């Protein structure tokens, strides 16, 4: 049997011949005894291979599944599954620590305008009304409109992690600044403190309150 017939036979048995070549080979088979025997052997080969198959034990089947599952776990959580838990615990602890020790808001130059007390030199001083509304107010209250002196109080906000600020030996609790100011304002004024700029000076950014000894006489700009 020529070599090309052998190859054709095997391809024919494997179903890998084109229909035209398969038909041609079938014509040849009718007249070639050797090729027919070869074809029978080739067709028998699949049965032999089937006979040679073996089933693995159930334990091995289970081991394959278990090993793949272990690999899946490693892929998700890393080689040490506990590492994932440790990382999560550490992250949670850090989050809590940051929440507790979080820095104060950075508002170094936040401005707060306080309602101003009426300066003593303006008390009982009535100025002539300038328009109809002011005239009406004057007639009704006997006083001209409150003179609003623009005033700016600026706080130096505490550095991060410092939640209690001391100003002139007065503990300022951890409450909002404007609320804190409003709460403290009467006692500060009673103690002789005055908000800066009260004398009608141009507002400037400084600390919220000045000591009585540092106060300048009202109207004394020099």
């Amino acid at each position: 049997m020529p070599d090309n017939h052998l190859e054709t036979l095997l391809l024919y048995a494997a179903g890998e011949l084109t229909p035209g070549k398969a038909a041609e080979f079938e014509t040849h088979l009718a007249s070639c005894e050797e090729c027919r025997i070869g074809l029978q052997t080739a067709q028998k080969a699949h049965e032999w291979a089937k006979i040679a198959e073996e089933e693995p034990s159930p334990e091995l089947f289970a081991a394959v599944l278990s090993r793949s599952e272990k690999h899946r776990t490693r892929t998700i959580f890393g080689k040490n599954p506990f590492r994932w838990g440790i990382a999560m615990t550490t992250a949670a602890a850090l989050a809590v620590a940051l929440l507790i020790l979080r820095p104060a808001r950075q508002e170094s130059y936040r401005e707060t305008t306080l309602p101003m007390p009426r300066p003593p030199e303006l008390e009982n001083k009535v100025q002539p009304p300038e328009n109809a509304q002011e005239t009406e107010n004057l007639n009704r209250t006997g006083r001209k409109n409150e003179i609003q002196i623009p005033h700016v109080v600026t706080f130096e906000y505490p550095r991060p992690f410092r939640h209690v600020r001391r100003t002139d030996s007065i503990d300022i609790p951890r409450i909002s600044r404007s609320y804190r100011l409003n709460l403290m304002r009467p006692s500060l004024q009673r103690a002789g403190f005055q908000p800066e700029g009260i004398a009608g000076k141009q507002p400037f950014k400084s600390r919220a309150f000045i000591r009585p000894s540092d106060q300048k006489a009202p109207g004394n700009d020099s």
Partner: protein
Amino acid sequence: METDDELILRCGANPEAFRELVRRYQGKIYGFLVNMAGHNAVDDLFQEMWLRVFKTGARYEPRGKASSWLFQIARNVAINHLTRHGRVAGQVTEEIPEVVSDPAPEPPETMETGELKTRVKTALAKLPFDQREVFLLREMGGLSFKDIAEELDIPLGTALSRMNYALKKLRTLLGSEYA
């Protein structure tokens, strides 16, 4: 029912798909590995092969038959093992894997089948490695000769020639009663 391609693609993420894939091919793959590398290491090779399938299944590109892909992996695992143990030099070593018959006593009615099984496995073990490899890839793995030639990096004619020699030798070894 899911196709083999779908099972391979999903096996990495879905344990049930992996289980089904192993169930479908375990007999053929195990038999292939036994006949390629022998009984001693077959359990380890079987696990390693399926672990590779598990790891690389998501990257599988269904261009040919799924069984071809699986048997290519099985062959690579077996060749690596044999190379590590110095049993394959240029893939032409005629190392014969040991044939272990079933230790359990067989009932009389299955004696003939058991005897045939043993004789077929013995005959396969006596084939030269390169012929046995082509035979197993073709008949057990269902690879086309073209795929076998590509996988083994040999000409198509060489693959057909090895198959032809393998069949002739098997026919001689098994005798006319089994041929």
